[in-house]
C-alpha cells in the first residue's frame, strides 16, 4: 500500500508543472493586460503604460516571467492581487469555504440520489422506473447549467417563492464567519443567541438547496448511469451466483457482494466529478451570486489579474488532483487486486 501511494505521488509532479505552464500561457493569450483593463484603453498614456508594466515585472520576456513565477511558487509565495493588493492565498482561504460548502452539498445530493437511483434501476432493469431514471439522467446530463439554474430560480424562487433567489444568507442576519461554512456558522450563532438569530440556520439551508441541485445535476446523472451499468455488469458475475447459491438474502447479495464491486468504477467517476464540480461552480456561483472561488476567478479573468488567475487556478487544480489522488487510494482499498499490483 505504501509503494502504491508513492507511485501515485510521483505521477503528481509532471501534472503540477503542466498546470503552471497552462495557466501562465492561457491568461497571457487573452488580449489586453492588467494595466490596460484598469486604466481603460483610450485614456492610457503609452509612457505610463510601459512604466506600470515595468513596475509589475510584466515587460520582461515570457520565459523570464515564467521563471519568476516558478521561483516564487517554490518559495511558497502565491503573490498579491494586482487589483486589491490582497495576498492571493488569503483571498482564497476566505472565499473557499463558500465553494466547498456548496460543492459538498452538491456532491452529497448527487451521490445519495445517484447511487440509490442507479442501484434500483439495475435491480428493476427494463421496468418503467429504470427507463424513467435513465431518461431523466440523460436529460440532466445534457442540460446547460446556467439555463437549468435560471429555470429553477424562475419556478421555485420567483413563482412559488419557496427558496431565496441568490446569496448565502438573508441580509437581516449578521453571522460572524467563524468557520466560513454558513450552515455551521448560522447554526452556532442561532444556538448562541436564539432570539436575535432566530431562523438563521433554516435560511442558510434554503439558500443552499437550489445551487446544490443545480451544481449536483451533472454528477448525479453520471453517477446514476455509471452505478446502473456497473451493477448490471457485476450482477452477471459468477461470484454473485455463488453468493446466491450460499443462500444469502437478496439484500446481502446486492449490497455486500454486488454493490461493493460495482462501486469501484463509480468511485473513479465520482473523483473525476470533482473537476466538473469546480467548473460548474464557476457558472453556478455566478448565477446565484454565491461569493465563492468560481465568482472570484471569473472576476479576476475579467480584470486580467494575472497572479489571482494563475495561482487561483493552480490551487483549484491542485485540489482536484489531490481529490483524485485520494480517490485512487480509496480505489486501492475497495479493490484488493489494485492494492497488491506491483
Amino acid at each position, binding site marked *: 500500500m505504501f509503494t502504491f501511494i508513492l507511485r501515485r505521488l510521483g505521477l503528481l509532479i509532471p501534472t503540477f508543472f503542466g498546470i503552471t505552464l497552462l495557466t501562465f500561457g492561457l491568461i497571457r493569450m487573452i488580449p489586453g493586460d492588467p494595466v490596460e483593463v484598469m486604466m481603460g484603453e483610450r485614456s492610457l498614456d503609452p509612457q505610463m503604460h510601459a512604466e506600470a508594466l515595468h513596475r509589475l515585472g510584466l515587460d520582461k520576456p515570457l520565459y523570464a516571467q515564467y521563471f519568476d513565477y516558478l521561483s516564487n511558487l517554490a518559495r511558497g509565495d502565491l503573490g498579491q492581487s494586482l487589483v486589491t493588493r490582497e495576498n492571493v492565498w488569503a483571498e482564497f482561504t476566505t472565499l473557499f469555504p463558500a465553494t466547498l460548502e456548496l460543492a459538498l452539498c452538491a456532491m452529497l445530493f448527487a451521490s445519495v440520489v445517484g447511487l440509490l437511483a442507479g442501484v434500483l434501476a439495475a435491480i428493476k432493469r427494463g421496468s418503467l422506473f429504470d427507463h424513467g431514471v435513465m431518461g431523466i439522467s440523460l436529460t440532466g446530463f445534457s442540460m446547460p447549467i446556467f439555463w437549468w439554474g435560471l429555470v429553477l430560480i424562475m419556478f421555485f424562487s420567483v413563482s412559488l417563492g419557496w427558496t431565496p433567489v441568490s446569496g448565502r444568507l438573508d441580509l437581516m442576519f449578521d453571522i460572524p464567519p467563524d468557520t466560513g461554512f454558513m450552515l455551521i456558522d448560522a447554526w452556532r450563532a442561532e444556538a448562541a443567541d436564539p432570539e436575535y438569530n432566530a431562523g438563521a440556520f433554516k435560511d442558510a439551508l434554503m439558500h443552499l438547496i437550489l445551487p446544490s441541485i443545480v451544481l449536483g445535476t451533472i454528477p448525479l446523472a453520471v453517477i446514476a448511469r455509471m452505478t446502473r451499468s456497473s451493477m448490471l455488469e457485476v450482477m452477471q458475475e*459468477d461470484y454473485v451466483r455463488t453468493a446466491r*447459491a450460499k*443462500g*444469502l438474502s437478496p439484500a446481502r447479495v446486492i449490497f455486500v457482494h454486488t454493490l461493493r464491486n460495482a462501486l469501484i468504477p463509480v468511485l473513479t467517476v465520482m473523483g473525476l466529478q470533482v473537476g466538473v464540480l469546480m467548473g460548474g461552480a464557476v457558472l453556478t456561483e455566478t448565477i446565484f451570486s454565491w461569493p465563492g472561488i468560481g465568482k472570484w476567478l471569473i472576476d479576476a479573468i475579467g480584470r486580467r489579474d494575472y497572479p489571482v488567475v494563475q495561482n487561483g487556478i493552480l490551487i483549484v487544480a491542485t485540489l482536484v488532483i489531490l481529490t483524485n489522488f485520494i480517490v485512487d487510494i480509496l480505489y486501492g482499498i475497495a479493490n484488493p487486486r489494485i492494492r497488491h499490483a506491483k
Partner: protein
Amino acid sequence: MSLLEIKNLSVQFGRKDAPFNAVEGLDLTVNEGELVGIVGESGSGKSVTMMAMMGLLEGQGRIVADKLSFDGKDLLTISARERRKIVGKDIAMIFQDPMTSLNPSYTVGYQIMEVLKVHQGLRGAALKARALELMQMVEIPAAESRLSAYPHQLSGGMSQRVVIAMAIACKPKLLIADEPTTALDVTIQAQIMELLVSLQKSQNMALIMITHDLAVIAEVAQRVAVMYAGQVVEMGAVPGLFRQPVHPYTEALLSSIPEHSKGASRLSTLPGIVPGQYDRPAGCLLSPRCPYVQPNCRQDRPALSPHGEGAYRCHYPLLNKETAR
C-alpha cells in the same frame, strides 16, 4: 425415501408462445450418500437442471415439474425465504471456474465465515475455528494465514478448494459439483476429484458430479445419467451402463474416449453438435446425428423406457447387439 426426487422437470426460456426447452421431461433421483454422475455434451442442460433445482435461475427460466422434492420438502411450492434456508446449507453447489466464483473484494476467510454466520449463527472464536477446520479439511496448506488471503492471491486449484470448503461448511446432505475441474490444470484435476470423493465418503453426503470425464464417473459413481439436449437419454448403474450402453448416444460418448480408439487411425466422433433453440428436430433429438437412425426416429420422439435398474429413451436400443467400440 430418496433425498432428491425430480419428476418430469422442464425449464423453459424465451417467449411464452415460442418457448425453448433447455430441459425437458427430466427424471432424476438421488439417494442419501449416493454419488450420481451426470454426463453429456456442452449445452445438454446439465447445469440448468441443477440451477433450476436450487432456484438460481432468478426468473429467467420457467420451471415446470410434476415433482421436485428434496429431503421431504417440496421445492416447487416453497417460499423464497424457506428455500434460502436449504440452499447453501443442505444443498450446496460448486461451480466450474473457481477463479471467478469467489468475490474478489473479500478475503477467503470472510467468504467461508459468511456461510457459517448466515446458516449456523456462529460468531467469534467458534466461527474462526470452524473456518480454519474447513480449510484444513480441504487440505489447504498454511490454512491459518490463507484465511486472510484474497482470491487473486490463490491459484486455481487453491481457489477451488476454498469453494469446496464453503460448500461443505454446513455439512450439506447434497453437494452438486458442476464440472469442478474443467477450468483447472490436468495435474490439479485429479487432486480435486480425489478430494471431492473422499469428502463425500467421510461426510456421507450425496454428490451429483456433472462432468465430461467419463473415466472418473466410471470409477467413483454408483449411478450415472446421460443427458442430451435437455433430456436424460440413458440412466443406469455403474459399471453396467459403461459395459453395455443401450442408447446410441451413450455408445458414441464412450467410443470418443481416446483409449477406446487405440489402433484406429482417427478418433471416433459423433458428427454435428447438440441442436439449439431453432433446430430441434421433431422426432428423436439425436436423430440428425444418430448412426442407427430409422425413418420413424425422425417423426416420433421416444419416451423413457425402463431397463433393469435404469432407463433409456430410444426406439431402437442396442439391447442384443455387441457394442460397436
